[in-house]
């Protein structure tokens, strides 16, 4: 107990200069890097690298949590088969916290973990609102937190000084601005109806989409914006109202079970005959196509912040192919966005540990590890997944449903992929997202 006290208070004392120290030590060590090259690394702790995950295990978004859990089980097994992180230290998921318990409980758990010192890292989280509450708390506790899923652009803009938090998911700007870029390329689009879930995710997307359209100066009018409740079970009233308007384009950031229900009831209500084109950007991919099957309309674009579609660059990218195959073999279904996000998280972790160890020649402290995950890049289905500081910048990828694919499932997947560079859909480092969107430049050429 006493030892812990002194540690906590000393860490507090040092907190102000933490960033300087970390950078200093990293830089200093970098100079010495060659001295350590090829040598055995000392100081690798005997016990495994202990992760606690925070995911929805119950409540409406739990399906996302389930995908993430599946993927992480698989990835941890894979990593451990090769000996663990840098081939030396195995990973153990020691606990999973149910996000449904709410931020009170989560923050309290973070505190307990920080204090007991028996966990090396917190990983996951789905809800944007929860991330905004838990991430600063983890940072206060100087407890490493690898945020893998939520998209709110406010996370680092509101808490710019967090040193113990990185996020490997792209922000929702990528999806929304990606959609703007898609509209720029479309012909004959004059009227748009937006349908977004009635919470921050939905409102943020709608706002960025609308502001972006205005900024790039396309001649498109959003004639109506709808916000169905999260977890809505009956969209038919929305569907018939939209069908009535016959807009040229439908934009939606509905996700998970909501988008499946919406599209299915939309098909039933003739929605996709009434609109010419749809952009469904709420982290939608294989699970949606699986549940809709043949009923999936073809005049839609699916996608968003990242190329997380099983058959996107499946042949070209070996690691992606392995990930998809393994996942399919293990769970008899194709990975969805929750799974991909988790994959990105584990890649960042591996990469971070590797780079930290190679620089300091020793196993990194939590602080050093988090610092090492800043500004790295690693493989993703869409090519390089780059971190600007602690925040990943993802490109936008969209595709159209098609039955023409080689994967062993009998439902449609996407084809005709459109790839939009990360720099086209994310603000430059240190520019606030909404400021950037308001001044968005049209794509040249």
């Amino acid at each position, binding site marked *: *107990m006493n030892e*812990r*006290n002194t540690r*906590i208070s000393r860490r*507090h004392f040092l*907190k102000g200069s933490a960033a300087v120290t970390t950078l200093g030590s990293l830089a200093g060590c970098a100079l010495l890097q060659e001295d350590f090259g090829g040598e055995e690394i000392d100081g690798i702790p005997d016990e495994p690298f202990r992760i606690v995950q925070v995911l929805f*295990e*119950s409540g409406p978004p739990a399906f996302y949590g389930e995908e993430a859990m599946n993927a992480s089980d698989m990835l941890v097994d894979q990593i451990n088969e090769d000996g663990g992180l840098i081939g030396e230290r195995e990973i153990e998921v020691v*606990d*999973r*916290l*149910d996000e449904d*318990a*709410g*931020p*009170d*409980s989560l*923050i*309290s*758990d973070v*505190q*307990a973990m*920080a*204090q*007991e010192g028996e966990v090396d890292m917190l990983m996951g989280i789905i809800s*944007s*609102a929860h991330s*905004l*509450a838990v991430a*600063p*708390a983890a940072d*206060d*506790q100087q407890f490493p937190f690898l945020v893998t899923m939520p998209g*709110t652009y*406010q996370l680092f803009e*509101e*808490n710019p000084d967090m040193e113990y938090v990185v996020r490997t998911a792209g922000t929702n700007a990528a999806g929304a601005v990606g959609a703007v870029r898609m509209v720029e390329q479309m012909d004959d689009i004059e009227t748009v109806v937006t349908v977004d879930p*009635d*919470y*921050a995710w939905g*409102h*943020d997307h709608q706002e960025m989409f609308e502001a972006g359209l205005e900024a790039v100066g396309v001649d498109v009018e959003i004639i109506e914006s709808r*916000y169905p409740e999260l977890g809505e079970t009956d969209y038919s009233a929305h569907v018939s109202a939209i069908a009535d308007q016959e807009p040229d384009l439908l934009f939606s950031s509905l996700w998970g079970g909501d988008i499946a229900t919406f599209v299915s009831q939309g098909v039933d209500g003739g929605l996709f005959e009434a609109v010419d084109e749809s952009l469904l950007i709420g982290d939608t991919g294989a699970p949606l196509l699986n549940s809709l099957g043949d009923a999936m309309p073809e005049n839609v674009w699916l996608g968003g912040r990242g190329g997380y579609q099983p058959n996107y660059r499946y042949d070209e990218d070996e690691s992606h192919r392995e990930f998809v195959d393994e996942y399919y073999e293990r769970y008899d279904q194709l990975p969805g966005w929750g799974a991909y996000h988790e994959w990105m998280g584990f890649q960042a972790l591996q990469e971070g540990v590797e780079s930290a160890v190679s620089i300091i020649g020793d196993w990194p402290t939590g602080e050093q590890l988090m610092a090492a995950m800043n500004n790295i890049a690693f493989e993703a289905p869409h090519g390089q997944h780059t971190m600007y500081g602690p925040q990943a910048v993802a490109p936008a990828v969209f595709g159209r449903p098609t039955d023409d694919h080689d994967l062993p499932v009998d439902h449609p997947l996407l084809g005709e992929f459109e790839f939009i560079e990360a720099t086209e859909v994310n603000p430059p480092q240190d520019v606030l997202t909404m400021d950037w969107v308001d001044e968005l430049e049209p794509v040249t050429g």
Partner: protein
Amino acid sequence: MSTRLPTFEDVQIKEVKGAILDKRLLTGGVLFVALALYPGLTMNAYHTRLLAWIMCFAIAALGFNVVLGYTGLLSFGHAAFFGTGMYTVVIAMQSAGITDLIVLLVLATLMAGVVGAIIGALSVKTHEIYFALLTLALAQLLYVLAARDVGGLTRGTDGIALNRPDFLGIPIGDAPAHIYLMGFYYHVILVCLFATIIVLWIVLRSPFGLTLKMIRENEMRAEMSGVPILRYRLYSMILSAMIVGLGGALYAVVVGHITPEYLDWTMSGEIVFMTLLGGIGTFLGPVIGAGGFILLQEVALNFTTYWHFTMGLVLFVVVLTLREKGIWGGAKALVDRVNDRRDDS
């Protein structure tokens, strides 16, 4: 805690009761000192935060029990007051630039009282399930306002982050989170809890408290004794709302980030759950209930993914076996029985 009064016929009884009261005061004093010293002695930040969390909800549950236990009204809308307390603090800090903790707490308590007056005025005419559902519906409308960010103050479901308030002009808010909580804020909550307990203890034994019990026990009789019952039910709602609002305001700083979820009816359900678990028929039951609920949830969460089931089972069993006694009243009854047996032998 006996609700009996000293009687006229036997002066000795008064003295005995006085002794009991002294004993209680002593116990309370010792408990207060022990709790006040806890963070400093153990330096355990996790426990400190857990205690702070429990105490905030203990205040809320005490306040809620004014309506349920003493006035006999089941409100399912108390999240409205808890959330109002929280949002008042954060909005006053962000929009009005008020950073003094005392001012913020007073402001939040008053605002919760205002919301309590509005919801109360609309609902006190109704009874039982209608009262429960009307308070639920009205509170839910408040939730919609916050979730849809009507008025642009709440930032919707993302919620708002909150800075640490200062105290009497001392910029203590700049202190690191640990030090702020363990060295200062925890004690503010502790003082507020004990102040709430003392004030409520007096108020519920005052003519006003007796009037609430009259309404609970027999509304018709109370009215036929010349009590304007609707007005007193409203007073009860306002008093209750203010205390719950204070709990919320205090909690806002502990959690540091406020979302509309604190206004949702499931939040009301948690407050009801806590109060009932502890025992609505006892004065201190709600405090025990808040502690029991939060600890149970923490344990169940760590122990099993099926923590909903565990909580549901506990609620079911407690309601069926202990009813208004709750775990606190049940424990007291058990102690009494053991003592009786000892006296017999």
